[in-house]
Every structure is written in structure tokens, then in C-alpha cells.
């Protein structure tokens, strides 16, 4: 019943700690205009806009999509604002795709962004509440214990996280949009960087970035007409489970395991490791690459770290992961999920430049959020799914 949908334009801003050269308007325009140019479309061609962003308190504004109406070119048009925690960039793209798949619209612009420098995101994450002391220091304080839990159960070598960080930081050097670029990065630099939330070191964590990412999603007619290759959306999926409940496996969440299994089924994939050419996944702390390799069924349980160790996830490996440099290199929170989805699409469109995986025909985009409880994913390919 669903119509075909495809990514026909992609635009990203330069990610940086403080984009003081632009307002929130300027930031989203930068990404959206590039996406429209890539799609060879104008603002008037767009039927609807779907925007995503992480908590509004990160900028100190409430429902900013309302004041962004003109900048998003959606006056007189339908506009939706999605927020599903850290997975929001991915979920936003999925909602935009569903408007096309449902046959409601032909060309949808989807944008996600964060401009953390305009307020204080660490404050917004750890607002002092009555009734209980505040002990969880931002996202690192929440996720570090989960990483320790993973190390305990998998017996992974202590330097797994360092190896992931090194790979992603080297990949970032090939990506013109990446925020954190360390030309001299090597194993020792990461190993010797300060421990922030033991076992997470400074260079094993993501930066805090300003930035926006945009895509134009079109129907089959648009995709066939476009001058540039399209990234055909083969399957999308979203799954959620509660944050805290008795017996919840927070290290290897069932929502992620089921989300990816269903996704592969929809995309007609039976052996993801061999059938997917590359994956851009949400790794805000280096160790999560190993954990997600298992959660995404690329490796057996407790063996995800081996893929990093053996170089399988490097650019030249059999399943390159985070070719863009990943969240470790650019983290505009609300956009981070969409950047993953966009990188997956860039790969199958053959437009990833220096971080292009040769012959990538089918790729995975992945995002997660909350307490490892919100998942959104898509599979895109260079041809429509038969």
C-alpha cells in the first residue's frame, strides 16, 4: 500500500561549538537551502515541513518551530515538530518519509537542529529538582555505568573504547562538516586524555555542537526525475521502552534488538552483516559502537567489541561504521540522529567524498535516545526495494 519514498536532497551546516555567525534562523536556512539546491528544487516546491529538535530548554525557547515558520518556508503549509529525545533526528526523517509513503505529499522538507550555545544544555539536562539530590552528571553520568555493565558482561578489553574513538576521529578528518577535528590524533592522545566519567575519557565522548541537517524526501516520480541519484528508503522503524523498570536490560535494550530485527525483515535482509554495506550509528560515547554492533545483530552477544578490534568497522573494513566521524565528532543533539540518516543516504548516493565507502549500495542509519530506550532506524539503497 505504501508509496516509494526517497531522499533526493541533503544539506548540512558546518558543525561547531558556537555558530555565533548565524541565528537559529540562519542555521536552519543554511542546511535547508543546501538540501533544496542538492534536490534542484525551490522553496515553493515543498509541500510540507517536518522539524525535529531535542529539548527546547537547550536553547531556552519553547516550540521554536513556531517562530521559525518563515525561515522554514512553511507559512501557509503543514508543519510538524517531532521530539523523541536523542533519536529525534531519525524519527523526524521517518515522519517526513511517512508523509510521502502515505501518498499525502510529493516533496517534504525535513530539518533538525540544535543551537546549544544559545543556552546551557548541561543545566537543562540536570535541572535541580526538589525531593532528591542531583547526582547524574549529564548524559555521561547516566551512560558511564551502562558501559561498565557492558565491560563486565562481555569481558571486552579496556582499550576497545579508545580504538573506536581513534577510528571515528580519523574518519572525521575526511568530513568537511565535522566539528571536532584532531589532525594529530593517535591512540596515546586518546588514552592519555582525562577520565571524565570513569570509564569514559574526554576524547571518548562527543562534543557539544551547534548545527543543522536537512533532507528533501520525494515520491517515486520526484526521485526518477531528479538529476542526482536518489537514496531509496527501503524500510523505517521506531521502538520505545520505558526508562526504568524491574528487570530491564539497559545495556542491551530489547527495543533496539526488536527495532533492528523488524527493520531488516521489512527491507528483506536476512544476514545484516553481509547484506548491509555500511552503517552510520549513534555513538555518543565510544563504547557504544561495540554495544550497538550486538544490538543491531551485526555481532553475537558479548562479541561486538571484536568487530572494532579486528578493524571490521573501519573505513576499509567489511562493515564500515560511522564514516562521517560520527556523533563523537559532531553532536548537534537534535540533528545528530538525522545526520546519521543523511550519511547513510549520502553513501548510497555516492556523494560522501573522502569518506565514501566504495560501492555502497545499501546502508543503515540509526539513532537512539533517552535512557537507551528510544530507537529509530532506516535502511536506504541505491535502487528502490522490489
Amino acid at each position, binding site marked *: 500500500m505504501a508509496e516509494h519514498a526517497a531522499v533526493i536532497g541533503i544539506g548540512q551546516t558546518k558543525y561547531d561549538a558556537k555558530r555565533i555567525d548565524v541565528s537559529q534562523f540562519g542555521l536552519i536556512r543554511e542546511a535547508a537551502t543546501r538540501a533544496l539546491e542538492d534536490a534542484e528544487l525551490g522553496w515553493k516546491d515543498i509541500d510540507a515541513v517536518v522539524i525535529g529538535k531535542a529539548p527546547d530548554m537547550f536553547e531556552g525557547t519553547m516550540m521554536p518551530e513556531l517562530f521559525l515558520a518563515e525561515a522554514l518556508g512553511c507559512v501557509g503549509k503543514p508543519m510538524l515538530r517531532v521530539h523523541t529525545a536523542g533519536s529525534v533526528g531519525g524519527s523526524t526523517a521517518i515522519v517526513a518519509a511517512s508523509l510521502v509513503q502515505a501518498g499525502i505529499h510529493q516533496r517534504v522538507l525535513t530539518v533538525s537542529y540544535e543551537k546549544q550555545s544559545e543556552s546551557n544544555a*548541561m543545566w537543562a539536562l540536570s535541572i535541580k529538582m526538589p525531593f532528591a539530590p542531583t*547526582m547524574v552528571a549529564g548524559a555521561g*553520568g547516566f551512560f558511564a555505568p551502562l558501559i561498565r555493565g557492558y565491560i563486565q558482561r562481555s569481558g571486552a578489553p579496556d582499550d576497545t573504547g579508545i580504538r573506536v574513538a581513534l577510528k571515528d576521529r580519523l574518519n572525521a578528518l575526511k568530513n568537511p562538516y565535522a566539528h571536532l577535528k584532531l589532525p594529530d590524533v593517535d591512540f596515546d592522545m586518546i588514552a592519555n586524555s582525562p577520565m571524565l566519567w570513569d570509564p569514559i575519557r574526554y576524547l571518548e565522548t562527543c562534543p557539544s555542537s551547534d548545527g543543522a541537517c536537512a533532507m528533501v524526501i520525494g515520491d517515486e516520480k520526484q526521485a526518477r526525475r531528479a538529476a542526482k541519484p536518489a537514496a531509496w528508503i527501503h524500510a523505517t522503524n521506531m521502538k520505545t521502552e520505558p526508562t526504568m523498570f*524491574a528487570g530491564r536490560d539497559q545495556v542491551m535494550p530489547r527495543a533496539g534488538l526488536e527495532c533492528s530485527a523488524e527493520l531488516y525483515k521489512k527491507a528483506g535482509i536476512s544476514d545484516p552483516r553481509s547484506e548491509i554495506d555500511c552503517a552510520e550509528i549513534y555513538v555518543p560515547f565510544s563504547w557504544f559502537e561495540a554495544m550497538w554492533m550486538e544490538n543491531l545483530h551485526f555481532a553475537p552477544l558479548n562479541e561486538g567489541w571484536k568487530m572494532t578490534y579486528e578493524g571490521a568497522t573501519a573505513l576499509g573494513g567489511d562493515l564500515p561504521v560511522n564514516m562521517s566521524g560520527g556523533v563523537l565528532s559532531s553532536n548537534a543533539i537534535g540533528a545528530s540522529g538525522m545526520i546519521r540518516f543523511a550519511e547513510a543516504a549520502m553513501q548510497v548516493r555516492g556523494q560522501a567524498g573522502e569518506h565514501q565507502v566504495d560501492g555502497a549500495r545499501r546502508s543503515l542509519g540509526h539513532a537512539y535516545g533517552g535512557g537507551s530506550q528510544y530507537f529509530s532506524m532506516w535502511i536506504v539503497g541505491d535502487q528502490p526495494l522490489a
Partner: protein
Amino acid sequence: MSEESTAVTKLVTPVRVSYTYTPGVATGKFLRGIRRGKIIGQACDSCGRVYVPPRGACPRCASPTSQEVELAHKGTIITFCVVRVPSENIDAELPYCAASILLDGADITLFGLIQECKFDEVRIGMRVEAVWKPESEWEYNLANIVHYRPIEEPDVPYEQIKEYS
């Protein structure tokens, strides 16, 4: 540079919003216990699992948790991290060890600080007990428990606590 050619890169708008937070029925009952030096969890009406602090629902069953269960002040470290980075609004001094602690009788962990031992002695499975503020300082606040400290009991084997991590 003339003023005309200087880009405006910053404007400051102080924002003040104030809220009256209320804990809800279930957490309110828990806080009344904490005020009296007791840790009172609640069991799920449908699966019987014990939540602490209770938030009013067993998310697993989407059922209320109406039966109150008094819990021990001792528990086991399920996992932990050592925080060495400053952060907004944090009540502890750096560095500190924050742990997920499974109190005896509970089916869910709560966060607590580990003190009165060296960080490199903290481990998964370690037994700890709650250290309370003096009774005269007790309020409706989980901060009445200032931290947890190790006790002379053998570690709980990982296999027995695996499902709580």
C-alpha cells in the same frame, strides 16, 4: 572597525520561569517514609515487583503499585562510574563515585554516592549500606541518605545480579 560593519553576535535575554513541583501520590508516600528514616517501596499490583522510589506505575505492566513494602537499608552495587567532570547543579564534590544500588527487597536500582572507601575498591557486586544525616536534619528528600558505604559482607556473584544491570 566601524559599528555598521560589526556583526551582532550576542544578545542576552534573562529568562526566569518558576515552577511548583509536586511529587505525585506514590512518590509522596515514599517521601513521608524518608522523612521518618524509612525506605518504603511499592509493589506492582500485577507482577509484584518492588519499585523504589515508586513513581506510581510499574512501566512493565502499566499497573499501579499500591502495596507498600519497607526495604532494608543495605544493598548491592549493580554498576557505577567515577565522575571527575564538573557539571551544573550537581550536589556532590568532585571526584565522586555514583552507583546504581539494588536495595535488598527491591527490584529496581537507585542512584547513590559511594564513600568511606577508595574509588579503586568499588566494584560490581559489592555490598553497601545507607548512611543517613542526623535525624534532626531529616526532610522530605532522598538526600537524607548522604551516601552509601561498604559493609563486611561477601560480594554478590555477578550471575545473581546480572538481570538488574
